[in-house]
């Protein structure tokens, strides 16, 4: 029925509007180069300030001191100092990604599914938008003021409760100190990303599971978490990459006492502390590979997860 009317409309329309169609396609062929002209600044910028500089480093990682192709720089990444810096970076990134995801998920579940007053939800979401941008120097200062040797919590615990955190082995300039600090932007990022996915969990799925005899625990075990799982996994890898590339907070917090990869690279760029420009490039390549893999995992999983939650 609708087919008939469509083709009828097309038939009558063709002769009458042929002139218009022609002139329109004329305009389009004329402007086609203009279209690319509009996109050109963007593409030129991307090539000159995103793609080529990165490739430059990637290529540089395979060029030796004598200017010839070599794998020596990659091999040299195996020195104990660099290996340990990658190891501490990976540990901090993993810990802050896992903790950030866990607590971010719990908070998101609480505000969306906990039947809290609706104002709380919008407050938390707004705060998350701000706090996820708090990474950097000021965040380090804030945590020094809180958990540093003279920080508020440290002092209160010592004077009021007689508990000295620093004597008990805690140090803000350590693995755990940095992890706790990173969670300050990791948790909000998790909340921002996972909230739409939790919204995508339809109320009817709970109800369908309930009529089929499932307890709330069984619903989450067999339905809720499996549906969120790809999103969770993807977001964890995004948070991992986010922490792995971050430097400002760590640098302001610990100076150079905690040798995470970006800080080693920072020192290398400033003063070639590794005494080998090629090795610096190889270090950069290592970072690119790790963050790129984590990001690609995120993107791939997210695209696959989207078809479920349509």
């Amino acid at each position, binding site marked *: 029925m609708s087919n008939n009317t469509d083709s009828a409309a097309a038939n009558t329309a063709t002769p009458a509007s042929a002139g218009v169609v022609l002139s329109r396609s004329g305009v389009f062929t004329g402007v086609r180069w*203009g*279209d690319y002209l*509009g*996109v050109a*600044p*963007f*593409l030129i*910028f*991307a090539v000159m*300030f*995103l793609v080529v*500089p*990165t490739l*430059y*480093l990637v290529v540089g990682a395979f060029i030796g001191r004598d200017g010839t192709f070599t794998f020596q720089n990659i091999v040299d990444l195996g020195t104990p100092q660099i290996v340990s810096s990658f190891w501490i970076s990976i540990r901090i990134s993993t810990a802050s990604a896992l903790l950030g995801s866990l*607590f971010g998920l719990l*908070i998101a579940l*609480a*505000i969306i*599914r*906990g*039947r*809290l*007053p609706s104002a*709380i939800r919008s407050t*938390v979401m*707004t705060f998350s938008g*701000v706090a996820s*941008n*708090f990474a*950097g*120097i*000021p965040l380090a*200062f*804030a*945590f*020094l*003021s*809180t958990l540093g040797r*003279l*920080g508020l*919590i440290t002092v209160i615990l010592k004077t009021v409760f007689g508990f000295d955190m620093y004597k008990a082995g805690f140090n803000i300039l350590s693995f755990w100190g940095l992890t706790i600090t990173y969670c*300050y932007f990791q*948790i909000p990022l998790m909340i921002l990303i996972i909230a739409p996915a939790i919204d995508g969990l339809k109320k009817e799925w709970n109800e369908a599971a309930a009529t089929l005899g499932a307890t709330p625990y069984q619903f989450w075990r067999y339905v809720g978490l499996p549906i969120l799982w790809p999103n969770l996994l993807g977001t964890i890898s995004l948070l991992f*990459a986010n922490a*792995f*590339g*971050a*430097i*400002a907070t760590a*640098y*302001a917090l610990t100076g150079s006492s905690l040798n995470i990869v*970006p800080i080693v*690279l*920072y020192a290398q*760029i400033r003063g070639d502390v590794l005494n080998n420009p090629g090795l610096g490039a190889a270090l*950069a390549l290592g970072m*690119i590979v790790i*963050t790129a893999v984590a990001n690609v995992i995120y*993107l791939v999983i997210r695209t696959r997860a989207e078809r479920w939650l349509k």
Partner: protein
Amino acid sequence: MKRSKLWAWIILILGALYFLLPLVATLLFSLSIRRGTYSLDAYTNVVQAPAFQQTFTFSLVVGVATIVVGLLIVVPAAYFVRLRAPQLRPIIEFVTLLPLIIPPIILVFGYIRMYNSSSLLPLTNTALGTNILLTLAYVALALPYMYRAVDTGLRTIDVQTLTEAANILGANTLTILVRVIFPNIIVAVLSGAFLTLAIVIGEFTIASLLNRPAFGVYMQNVGANRAFEPAALAVISFVITWIAMGMIQLLARFAPKTAPRTD
């Protein structure tokens, strides 16, 4: 059945403690420069320091330059991709993801290698050249946020009909962009701009490695040498971030909406 759940409140309170304690601690710490009493001395020390004023102005100027350059690059691209060259969309979207994938320290490392004094385009030779490089680096950092903001703005208006209407009235492409499209997406653009400002103003890594006298570098310096002033700086920059994000929230209420074409 409609009661709030106890576990939700517990998590919320724990979360609030974690997120609010550092803010409170920083505030109290910044006021404690004098023994036994609260005072604003740390703030006066910070604000009166010439270095604070100079670096803050510098970062503000770079931030504004970043927004202008960014818009000049992003708006035409987003407009043409939406209207005339949708086949370029995957490429453009991939490019806007790159700054999220490549850490800033890698970008600036690449710049230093590529645009040094012995290269074809020796931007790092002069202060002006380095400032330009810094601005372009920030454009790269802000690219994902700016593109998304502009693209969202374009999605809420009917770009195609507006363009065709202006075309029939005799406007050329530049006129359409400047006088028709831009005014309609100004709110979206502004929220992208404020986000950019929030990111750029305290940025440390790139500015430091390019040796620019930026606010982030200044803050790091103060942090290494003073005890209470860093807390005051942290409070100041939190306030700036809040203002910038608050502006975005506020702007969202004024977003114009013509009937969007569902495509």
